[in-house]
């Protein structure tokens, strides 16, 4: 299984049209990667599909950086 960060990075690059180098753990989806609210909703949807999990709306709201997403996914595995 590929590394969680690698898989998350690939989705973020595809979805937000950013360079792989920009996708750092501390990067904020909205502030650093140019995502709007709807982009974040879509990103969460894709993460759910990629990792075969359901992320509740409450939890999804707390995912503001790449690191948040990676840690959240790891914590549920």
């Amino acid at each position, binding site marked *: 299984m590929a590394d969680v960060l690698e898989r998350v990075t690939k989705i973020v690059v595809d979805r937000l049209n950013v360079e792989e180098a920009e996708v750092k753990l501390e990067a904020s989806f909205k502030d650093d990667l140019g995502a709007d609210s*709807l982009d974040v*909703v*879509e990103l969460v*949807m894709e993460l759910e599909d990629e990792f075969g999990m359901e992320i509740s709306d409450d939890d999804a709201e707390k995912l503001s950086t790449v690191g948040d997403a990676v840690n959240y996914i790891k914590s549920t595995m």
Partner: protein
Amino acid sequence: MLLEGKYALVTGASRGIGKEIALELARQGAHVAVNYAGSEAKANEVVEEIQALGRDAFAIQCDVANSDSVTAMVKSVTERFPRIDIMVNNAGITRDNLLMRMKESEWDDVINTNLKGVFLCTKAVTRPMMKQRSGRIINIASIVGVSGNAGQANYVAAKAGVIGLTKTVAKELASRGITVNAVAPGFITSDMTETLTDEIQSAMLSQIPLSRFGDPKDVAGVVTFLASEASAYMTGQTLHVDGGMVM
């Protein structure tokens, strides 16, 4: 045909306007999931009529006011159909009464089915539509949601709410290729209007410039237009299908 190969979900499609919408979408080439709340036998008749046209169709029970039920319905539809191109929020009820006599339960029932139901169904289909980067959501409002109507405070509030919801969701989803429009029927002959007295019916007729009551087909035609490519540049609109009653 305007909707060849499209996949649609129509709520409240076992009778009245919803039935005619489901049939007309199918005549235009769409495959249709026929939602019903209680009338299973009637829903199955609609399904058979659609299948006779050579389209895929199935009946699916769901109380649109119940979020678990709505989630389960949309899940079943996405399992059965490869996509959901068209969502028609048509399910509705009436509990008419003068405001002074309206029970809280009459208010709640109508708001829950007619307004919250549209919210829940729209939210549920948004996910597959966002992934598809396309979709048509068509909400059946009512002309009384624009004009007001004595004896229908609950229904009017819900339908006016649907019109506002339509505009907002249209703005939220426009960037993802999803259009959201509403149709506001006037006096359309259906099970729901047959309970009105002759006196009320003739009073209403006098207010209709085209001087006839509408037929469910009149509404279905406009819904088909909104579901088709012909309306690609429209979103957030409410089309009045009322013989000119409210301009």
